[in-house]
């Protein structure tokens, strides 16, 4: 008898609480767990700290007023270099900003995943990161070189949300696009509340064939507490080979940042509805 970890987006959201620090996998507008993000938008959750190689996940949650603080190195939609909803939130000064370098971010996730307080690096030396992010400190090498380096602090993460391509019902999972990004580190960095959405749940016996190579079997069930089966979950971000980015939809999303009325209309049409209805409407476009 094996554990079936399948649940719904709303089940996942019911296990989150106000003020949590939530890591979100993917990169920019690529393989983002958007159905889980939309479920957060529909919920009463608030004051979240978001840790992300940011894209539409961060922009959408900022626009919906769910975000207290963002820990990030960029918030990009790839074909649009800066998420305009994030731009609005920053320029209004309504979110706390914790800046990172892309690589420093990796080290802070890795330190958390390895359960050590920090990892040393040159990254950040000489830049304004040390001035603007008070969590960053320097450390002197204990060896003869005596170099003064940056200590990338382990991130404290309460929950992680990622979108993978295939999984079994126990949470073994694979990506099918070109890059895992840092999803495995984010899943290891959280001690609990690690949730993945996937395009399709398959029997464990079929996982290797779906992956095409053992090199893609990079998420195992000890890293996952819950699995949401949802074809199209990453829409409108890309999830190749299952689907490309929906560029016209992304443009509409971006344009809705221009005015409060534009955002209200976008929200009412695409976010104040169930995920089932969202997927039906997208299919009918």
């Amino acid at each position, binding site marked *: 008898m094996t554990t079936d970890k399948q649940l719904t987006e709303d089940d996942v959201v019911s296990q989150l609480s106000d003020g949590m620090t939530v890591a979100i996998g993917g*990169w920019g507008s690529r393989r983002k767990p958007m159905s889980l993000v939309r479920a957060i938008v529909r919920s009463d959750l608030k004051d979240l700290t978001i840790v992300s190689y940011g894209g539409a996940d961060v922009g959408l949650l900022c626009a919906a007023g769910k975000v207290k603080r963002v820990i990030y190195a960029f918030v*990009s939609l790839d074909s649009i270099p800066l998420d305009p909803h994030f731009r609005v939130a920053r320029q*209004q000064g309504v979110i706390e900003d914790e800046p990172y370098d892309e690589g420093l971010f990796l080290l802070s996730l890795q330190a958390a995943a390895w359960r050590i307080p920090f990892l040393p690096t*040159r990254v950040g*030396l*000489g830049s304004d990161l040390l001035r603007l992010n008070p969590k960053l400190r320097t450390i002197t090498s204990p060896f003869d070189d005596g170099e*003064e380096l940056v200590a990338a602090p382990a991130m404290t993460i309460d929950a992680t949300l990622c979108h993978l391509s295939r999984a079994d019902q126990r949470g073994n999972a694979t990506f099918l696009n070109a890059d895992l990004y840092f999803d495995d580190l984010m899943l290891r960095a959280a001690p609990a509340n690690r949730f993945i959405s996937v395009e399709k749940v398959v029997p464990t016996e079929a996982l290797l064939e779906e992956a095409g190579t053992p090199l893609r079997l990079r998420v195992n069930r000890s890293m996952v507490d819950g699995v949401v089966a949802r074809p199209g979950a990453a829409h409108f971000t890309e999830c190749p080979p299952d689907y490309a980015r929906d560029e016209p939809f992304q443009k509409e999303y971006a344009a809705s940042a221009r005015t409060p009325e534009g955002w209200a209309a976008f929200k009412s049409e695409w976010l104040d509805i169930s995920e089932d209805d969202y997927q039906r409407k997208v299919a009918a476009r």
Partner: protein
Amino acid sequence: MSGSDDITRADVCVVEIAECFRGDGEIVANPIGTIPMIGGRLARASFEPDLLVTDGEAALIANDEAFVWPNGKVMEYYNPYRSMFDVVWSGKRHVIMGASQMDVYGNQNLASIGDDYFKPKAQLLGFRGAPGNTVNHATSYWVPNHSPKVFVEKVDVITGVGWDSAAKAGPAATKYFYLKRVVTNLCTFDWETPDRRMRLRTVHPGVTVDDVVAATGFELIVPDVVPESRLPTPEEMELVREVIDPKALRLLEVPS
């Protein structure tokens, strides 16, 4: 083939970018932006054949074409983001980044504009990978819109580290630090000066020293004689036009 009269400013910029990589050997040339991607490939297809280049996604590829690969990609290495940081931190890389602001010592700002970082007048890209790039390997810059708004006395946020900031941060910051050049739509700068202030290296054909000084918001080092940036050779023009950038995307970045 065509003569030198139909060589555009964009073509000159491509060659100046390619020249940034001269002497680099077997490292990853990682130019970000349209003209930088063309220039990096031109360097490899001509005088710097050992360079490695990315496809803009998760691979290093051997193809000369910059943007589309009608006959498929020839992969040399699987290079997802995690591997890219291995490349960056092992130093086998020369990046060409953009800059929304830059000062005389080469401090770069990509993050935001305004005095209050926490409520900026304009949010830009963020820190991206600029802090790590600049202290780990060679860095050059590409500025397609040379103006006093870009080249400023003081940047609002230091994302990419300049010569003075690296020196202040100490030996761990300067150990692998090397800012090489800035190529703009008007000229090329370097920091080959005793105090590492920015120097006008060459002006592109059709641009005067006064044009550059007027478009730069800080005091440059201007040598008594400023040479012109070199023109592409006929062989280089053929590579750019026929193979690397047949759709002339370079003209969209620097119009003639």
